[in-house]
Each structure stands twice: as structure tokens, then as C-alpha cells.
């Protein structure tokens, strides 16, 4: 699994996520969408092994009729963040480079900015959208030597 699939699989293991789209959200309570926003090289060692970082935004639609709903929504994002930050345990990650498939490990997940992002319909009678920014650090081992 590449890093996007790995993070997708991690999120689907979270008990309160039942429906997770990629780059798409249905505007209905309980819908989640994972939006990859880019990958970058953090550092490379003398053997050519790379440490890379992939960033994501998770959008989550919740109902928001009253303060109780909104407290639950923020509480769920907090719970998800703390759960994700304990998830990374050197799970295998792959990267397709041309005809080669390189392997690596998921080393760390951190999250930030879990907050209300948008009120799509302009009122609180339908779903409102929250965001959680996710950063996944992973290694890719050199194919040489």
C-alpha cells in the first residue's frame, strides 16, 4: 500500500468512521473525505534511504443542531487525533518508482487544526463540515545496495 492507502486504512480502523471517500465528501452527517495535499522529501541518508512526509486534510460532515452536537463533533476529532498519533508502528509502506516497488515504513502521524471548516448550506439544519489536517511521515528504503 502506498502512503495514501496506508492512511486511508488507518482511518477506516477508527471505530467511528464508517464511510471514507477520497477527494470527495457527501454533504451528509457521518461522511468523511480524505484529501491528499502533497508529498515531500524531508531528508535522505548517505545510502539513499529517504524520509518523506505526506500531508492530508480530512473533512468530516456532522450534524450541528445545538451545542451538544458541536461538543460531540469537536470531541470526536480530538479522539481521532489522539488515536491517529498512536497508530504509526512501522507498518509497511510501498512506493512505485518506475518499474520498481520500493518498501518503507510508516514512522509517525501527527494532526493539527481540527476545527469547524465550513457550513455548506449556510444554516445548521443540515451537515456542517469540520477539518483535521494530517501529516504522515514515512521512510522509503533505497533500491540499491
Amino acid at each position, binding site marked *: 500500500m502506498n502512503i495514501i492507502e496506508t492512511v486511508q486504512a488507518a482511518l477506516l480502523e477508527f471505530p467511528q468512521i464508517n464511510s471514507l471517500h477520497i477527494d470527495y465528501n457527501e454533504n451528509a452527517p457521518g461522511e468523511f473525505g480524505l484529501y491528499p495535499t502533497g508529498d515531500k522529501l524531508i531528508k535522505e*541518508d*548517505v*545510502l*539513499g*534511504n529517504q524520509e518523506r512526509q505526506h500531508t492530508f486534510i480530512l473533512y468530516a460532515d456532522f450534524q450541528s443542531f445545538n451545542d451538544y452536537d458541536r461538543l460531540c463533533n469537536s470531541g470526536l476529532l480530538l479522539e481521532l487525533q489522539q488515536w491517529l498519533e498512536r497508530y504509526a508502528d512501522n507498518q509497511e509502506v510501498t512506493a512505485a518508482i518506475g518499474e520498481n516497488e520500493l518498501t518503507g515504513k510508516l514512522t509517525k502521524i501527527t494532526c493539527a487544526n481540527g476545527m469547524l471548516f465550513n457550513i455548506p448550506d449556510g444554516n445548521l439544519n443540515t451537515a456542517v463540515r469540520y477539518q483535521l489536517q494530517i501529516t504522515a511521515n514515512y521512510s522509503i528504503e*533505497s533500491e540499491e*545496495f
Partner: protein
Amino acid sequence: MPDSTAVGKLKRSYLLHYIDASFGGETPNWFLIGKDIEDMSVELNPDTSTKKNILDETVTDDNGYEPSISADTYYANTGDTIYSKIKDIAMNRLTGDDCKTKVLEVVIDKKGDNVEYDAWMEDCIVKPQSYGGAQGGVNIPFNINFDGNRKQGTVTITDKVPTFTPAA
């Protein structure tokens, strides 16, 4: 005519350093060092001195080299063949022959199938410098001090395992 086996400018990963994780075993168990290290060099530490004679000429005495390598990051990993020995040296404060093994240097400056790379093997002393470090892993940086008995030869690498053959 250009040499079809030459690699041109060498990437850093084309200079390889292995140490024998068997530490004196009959069959060397080469462990490639450099993982998690962004900058590593063989410091030659040339020992020279200059003086002026009565003719005002400068004379240089060349006393050779005292090479060493500083592997400033080694994250302890039970899956590494070198781990148990590094732990033993560091935690039991081993000295002398207990720290002695071999270092193998390989220069990958040719390409092709079944290539024999230029290589040098030498005795060395492995000395952990500290243990602990920041959050993220137990770091045991170590130095490799070259200890003579240098031999030139060639290496073939099969499935990431080098085999050294001394020059005749």
C-alpha cells in the same frame, strides 16, 4: 570511446562502508552503515609536520594517516546484526580486542552485470560514543578507528551481501 562501465559522477550512496558484525567470527557478516546518517566521511587525519632548515627551506615530515569514521546516528534496532555487539560494548564498557572487527570500503564506480568493485578491508576498533538521544529512538553513535592490516581487493555484491576477495 567512452567507457560503458563507468558511472560518471558518483552518488554518495556509491561509497559503501560495512563493518563485520561477527566481530572476529570465521565468516564475516557485513553490516552496511549509513542508515539515518545524512553526512559521513572517512576522516584521514593526516599527520604531517613542517620545519625550516638552516637553508630556509621548508621540510615536511609525513607521518601517515590516522583514519576514522564517525557514525553519528545509529538507532538501536534488534533487527540489525550489529545491534547486540554495539549494545554489549556500550553497556559493558568493553575495550581492546572486544571492540575489534573489520571494516570494508567499497567504491561503486562501475556498472554492469557481475561487476567486481574496488574494495579495501582493514582491521578497526568500534567505539560507541554515547547512548540515548532525543525522542524517536535510542541513538548509539559510534566511531570506527582504522587499525591497520589494510588489504586491497575486489567485492561482488549479491542480494545486498558483499563478498571480498583480496588482490593476489
